């Protein structure tokens, strides 16, 4: 898992330069304070039902208790499992294109909420366009993003980084040196985040 941290950290460091050439959207896929003592990397697939369950049932509580409280910075990393989820990559590309318009999180939410509708589609493009409209994305900018290939390359780079880091399935989490595969239940997440937070606070004293 160690390989992911420098990869994403480098992307985060580059994020303020987003207006310059070929920026990644990692900053737009990040929630929480940059000075939060704990960073969680979530490696996720929009077509994975366990990711959906985590995103809609577990993450809102974590966001409320840890991210908004400034205790945790949350980074979303794309890991579309294309071998079993044929629409996961187009969904991830849509999300990255939304991130370019600073609308990643609304699209993230709506993709997971509507997963059961688009997951079985042979070609989800039309449905994704309707989602983009409902998320108030600029259509022409979106079309340009979807066809240019940069978003696809970014998704691929995310997935390769996650794979190099050891992630085989989704969701998987990297929490300050700890690799946690699977949809970790809320209570287990609380214990991990509290213990890491306490250890970091003690180290600062």
């Amino acid at each position, binding site marked *: 898992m160690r390989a992911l941290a420098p990869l994403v950290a480098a992307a985060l460091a580059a994020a303020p330069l987003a207006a310059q050439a070929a920026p990644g959207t990692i900053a737009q896929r990040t929630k929480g304070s940059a000075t939060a003592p704990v960073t969680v990397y979530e490696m996720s697939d929009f077509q994975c039902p366990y990711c959906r369950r985590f995103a809609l049932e577990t993450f809102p509580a974590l966001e409320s208790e840890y991210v908004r409280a400034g205790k945790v910075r949350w980074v979303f990393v794309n890991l579309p499992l294309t*071998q079993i989820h044929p629409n996961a990559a187009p969904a991830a590309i849509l999300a990255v294109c939304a991130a370019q318009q600073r609308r990643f999180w609304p699209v993230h939410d709506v993709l997971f909420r509507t997963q059961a509708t688009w997951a079985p589609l042979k070609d989800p493009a039309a449905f994704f366009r309707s989602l983009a409209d409902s998320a108030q994305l600029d259509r022409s900018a979106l079309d340009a993003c979807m066809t240019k290939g940069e978003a696809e390359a970014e998704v691929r780079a995310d997935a390769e980084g996650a794979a190099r880091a050891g992630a085989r399935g989704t969701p998987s989490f990297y929490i300050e040196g700890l690799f946690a595969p*699977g949809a970790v239940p809320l209570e287990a997440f609380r214990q991990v985040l509290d213990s890491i937070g306490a250890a970091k606070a003690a180290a600062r004293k």
Partner: protein
Amino acid sequence: MLALACDPSRDVTVRVALPDAAERVLPAPGIAVVALPYDRDSLIRRLEAAATTPRPATAVADSLFAAFRTPFASVARVSYEVRALEDSARASADAALAQRLAAARARLAAAQAALATARTRLAGADSLRAALRRWEDITYKGWDSLVKQAAGRYTAVTDTTDATGVARLHLLPGRWWLYARSFDAADPNREWYWNVPLPAQGDTVVLDPSSGARRPRY
């Protein structure tokens, strides 16, 4: 705690079974089973197709190997018979048994003499083996780079069969071939060889005489 996840990787159980000297197919412990992300036979064929010189002819070695096989099998079979009779003789003072044991020992000595003769003749294959090694060194020179290219981001996954002949592999999604080789108990100049494409479905693969090939060991 096992958290639920979407995971396209596969756990594959490989059962290896081989004939012993008496041709009884039994679970084979200690066999290295390798899952390769490429078809090694096709890579070998590509390199051989591009060879600048023809592969040395092996007909002479093949006939020497065939001539060696019978005395070797005879020694193996009679040795087994002698051991069994010796075990029985230790538990019994039966005169008929002692006679049978003496006769078996005499046959073993004759078989060993025949094997020694065949082994001397087998030395005639040494020059062919050496020529083949030289040809392979030249022909397969590009092997490493070809493998690197074929494997892409995947790396081989290996396990060794346990006492029950079972190996377990955890594989990423993708196309895999199961590669293994083992000595042939019936013939030291042959080996068992498998290069089996992993089926898309199923979690158990059997490597046995029906899925492998007995081939000369030059």
